[in-house]
């Protein structure tokens, strides 16, 4: 075991995201000198690795379309050239290699592939039978040891319907029953028999945490155990972080002894392997990115204080229905708010939801707004959710052009997943994750005509066979396509 552990430690750091901006580094400064490899490198994904490979395909030139680049720019009558799975160029009058497929884009709109940072596809799949209900390990308030990917059922028919809505990348999270729910996984929305075949190569994992009503209801009200209050919730997280810091310190000390060589190295013993603390220590190191389900403004402020106490960064508050009340605070702390357009009232902590939430977060100087779904229905039309936010914003005097709003579904979510350097915009060198829409996507009548993932057509509205149906729907006499 010890040898195995040592081997894991020796494995290099993955391509995990750099520390996000505006982290309070005061805790970090107090740490021992940085060791050669990250002590939490064992959290890297050398095992359970992605097996996704980009299939070869010819270049594609999309011509004369209205292009929203995801960087805040709109280009009319522009071309987008996809070569070898990457965006090669965006601009007017591009020359296509002779073997290119050409998509005539007159009247069409082109955007980056949409990204949903809050999905439970695969872990709460259709059909929603108990046997497939694998999203909440609701047996302990902290299950940082579990990985959502080990629950993902790649045959969830919802992946395909999300693809028809332009979703190319999605984060699958554990549910919110627990204070600390476990690790997320980032998937490319490609069909595969295994989740490894969908796994976004090199993407950092996330950590799902939850504020508020859910943990205290699941444990306090339903099971009569800790936590049963919001103060219990916070004590619960803090105890976990305190333990994780000790674990991290022990790992670092062990690693320093090994590095020093000689007798110290010989006698060195690693701390007992703990899968839960592996995750939390990696999160403290910024190698796993922290996504926190939090509705209420006051709870978000509490969590920000806690993140300073323990020296970590929350990349996004999810379901942030009260983000509009603290839009400036979130912006100042470099935290994104992931929101629905108009959901509210389905529980007490959602009572103050307003449809101007997204537009108001966007309006705060430096604000980072994201549209997320948490729903197998909503993920099919994030573009329409954004459209509603645009309309309510306009009614409130906040005029948001399409080229700005598209960032809520593309570059902003990419940033919180640590993937801003790879996807989320139509810039040369980025993955060719692209949607061709039949019209302005911010409309109820908008449909994706083509969805490219790494330059490969994965959805074609005119040719449903391009996106294979889930195994579950095969041979079902009742299936919608069975009679046609």
């Amino acid at each position, binding site marked *: 075991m010890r040898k195995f552990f040592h081997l894991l430690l020796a494995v290099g750091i993955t391509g995990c995201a750099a520390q996000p901006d505006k982290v309070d580094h005061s805790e970090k400064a107090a740490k021992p000198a940085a060791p050669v490899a990250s002590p939490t490198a064992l959290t890297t994904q050398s095992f359970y690795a992605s097996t996704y490979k980009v299939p070869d395909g010819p270049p594609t030139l999309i011509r004369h379309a209205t292009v929203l680049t995801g960087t805040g720019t709109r280009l009319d009558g522009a071309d987008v050239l996809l070569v070898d799975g990457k965006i090669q160029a965006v601009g007017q009058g591009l020359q296509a290699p002779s073997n290119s497929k050409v998509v005539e884009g007159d009247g069409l709109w082109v955007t980056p592939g949409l990204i949903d940072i809050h999905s439970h596809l695969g872990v709460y799949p259709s059909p929603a039978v108990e046997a497939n209900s694998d999203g909440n390990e609701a047996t302990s308030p902290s299950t940082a040891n579990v990985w959502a990917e080990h629950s993902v059922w790649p045959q969830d028919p919802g992946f395909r319907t999300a693809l028809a809505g332009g979703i190319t990348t999605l984060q699958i999270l554990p549910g919110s029953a627990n204070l600390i729910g476990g690790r997320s996984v980032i998937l490319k929305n490609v069909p595969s028999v295994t989740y490894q075949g969908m796994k976004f190569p090199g993407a950092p994992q996330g950590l799902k945490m939850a504020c508020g009503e859910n943990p205290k209801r699941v444990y306090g009200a339903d099971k009569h155990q800790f936590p049963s209050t919001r103060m219990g919730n916070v004590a619960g997280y803090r105890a976990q972080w305190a333990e994780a810091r000790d674990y991290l310190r022990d790992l670092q000390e062990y690693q320093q002894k090994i590095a020093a060589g000689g007798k110290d190295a010989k006698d060195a013993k690693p701390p007992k392997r703990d899968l839960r603390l592996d995750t939390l220590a990696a999160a403290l190191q910024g190698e796993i990115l922290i996504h926190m389900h939090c509705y209420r403004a006051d709870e978000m402020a509490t969590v920000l204080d806690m993140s300073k106490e323990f020296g970590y960064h929350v990349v996004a508050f999810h379901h942030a229905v009260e983000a509009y009340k603290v839009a400036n605070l979130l912006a100042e702390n470099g935290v994104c708010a992931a929101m629905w357009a108009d959901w*509210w009232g389905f529980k007490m902590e959602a009572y103050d*939801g307003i449809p101007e939430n997204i537009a108001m977060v966007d309006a705060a100087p430096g604000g980072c707004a994201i549209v997320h779904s948490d729903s197998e229905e909503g993920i099919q039309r994030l573009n*329409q959710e954004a459209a*509603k936010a645009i309309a309510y914003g306009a009614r409130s005097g906040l005029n948001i052009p399409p080229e700005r709003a598209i960032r809520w579904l593309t570059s902003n979510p990419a940033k919180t997943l640590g993937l801003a350097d790879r996807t989320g915009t139509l810039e040369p060198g980025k993955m060719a994750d692209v949607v061709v829409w039949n019209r302005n996507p911010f409309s109820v009548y908008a449909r994706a005509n083509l969805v490219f993932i790494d330059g490969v057509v994965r959805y074609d509205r005119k040719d449903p066979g391009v996106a294979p149906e889930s195994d579950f729907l095969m041979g079902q006499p009742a299936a919608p396509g069975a009679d046609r």
Partner: protein
Amino acid sequence: MRTLRCILTALALQSGLVWQATQAADTRVRPVLIRDATVHTLSSAGTLEHTDLLIKEGKIADIGHGLDAPTGAEIIEAAGRPVTPGLFGGLGHLGIEEIGIEPTVDDYSLKVGAMRPEFDVSSAFNPDSVVLGVGRLGGMTFAMLAPSAEGGGKGASGTIIAGQGSVARLDGTLVPAAHALFLDVGGDAASLSGGSRAAQFMLLRQAFTEVRSPKSFLQGDIRVLTPGGRQVLQTYLDGSAPMVFDVDRASDIRQVIAFAQREKLRIVIKGGAEAWRVGSELAAAKIPVVLNPLDDLPLSFDAVGATLENAARLHEAGVKIAFSFDDPSPHNIRKLRQAAGIAVAHGLPWDAGLAALTRNPAEIFGVGATNGSLERGHPADLVLWSGDPLEVTTLAERVFIQGQAQVMRSRQTELRDRYLEKLRANAAR
């Protein structure tokens, strides 16, 4: 973001104006003339462009060209924008569920382990629920209160007869005469009928027998209804009000159709994820379907055939359709308009999409004389929209319910304005 300050300043002025405009006089006193609108009448008159609509004493006094404004009338220049009947908010918990997961304000289900068709949620209706204001601002003016049949967890359970509800208007009034009885059958209701969907019709047949052939029962026989329940069920067996069956699977829908024909019931199918597979039978039996246009996943084994084309296929088969979400929570019923637009994007004619939110549900639930179409003499129950009423970027600009202009404020706009103010203060800092 440099522009934020001036935007917000402009907003302050604008919202002042909006506030003034929405303090419209009581239309029972002050007439309103909407000029140059695209009027979707949902009547035989169809859609009328560049048309005026006059509201006098709460009623639609006239629809036509070049109408004169009576003295003191408020004049609204529509400039071609659409006017439609007030929209239908579906079947659910309006005014009987202020927030979810909170027993003190959730009154939509009876769990006493016995069939109680006499249970009527109308008496729990709260006209002061803030949920009504949110729906009103979304252009919804009427909805059908519907109880839910629910399992009891550790306690007593509900049964497949959820109980009754009636039409509620979003001005906070009820229409008790427009009532219905709600039943839940199929796989998701198996736990309410002893574990098998086969028992559902067995239990219903017994209930009907208790009403129709009381003498067939011997002393000591088990009965499923109370005397009050028998009395209430009798009124539905007479066909004076519809029985609404929540059912999705095609074979279950066929069972319901056969049952209804045998018992000569007036029924409505709710849910109907696989109703398109039974379209011609539903059309022949003249059974309307209230469906959720967004159902396109096999969320259960009863819904393997779910498709976004359900509405279009049923319409094509000649079935009268209306829209409702499956989720009976009332908070986001304004989204039903979007669902209608999505049905249109998947093959339903636009006019049929609007009818499924207006005329059809009004007729199905017995308020066709006051809701769902714009005709001379009807109470003014209508909406002026900023654009295509089925488009997500469109908002309701003015809403009239049963002759009364609605103030375009809700708890949500109050919250918005309080915090916009703070956002502005910060931008000015």
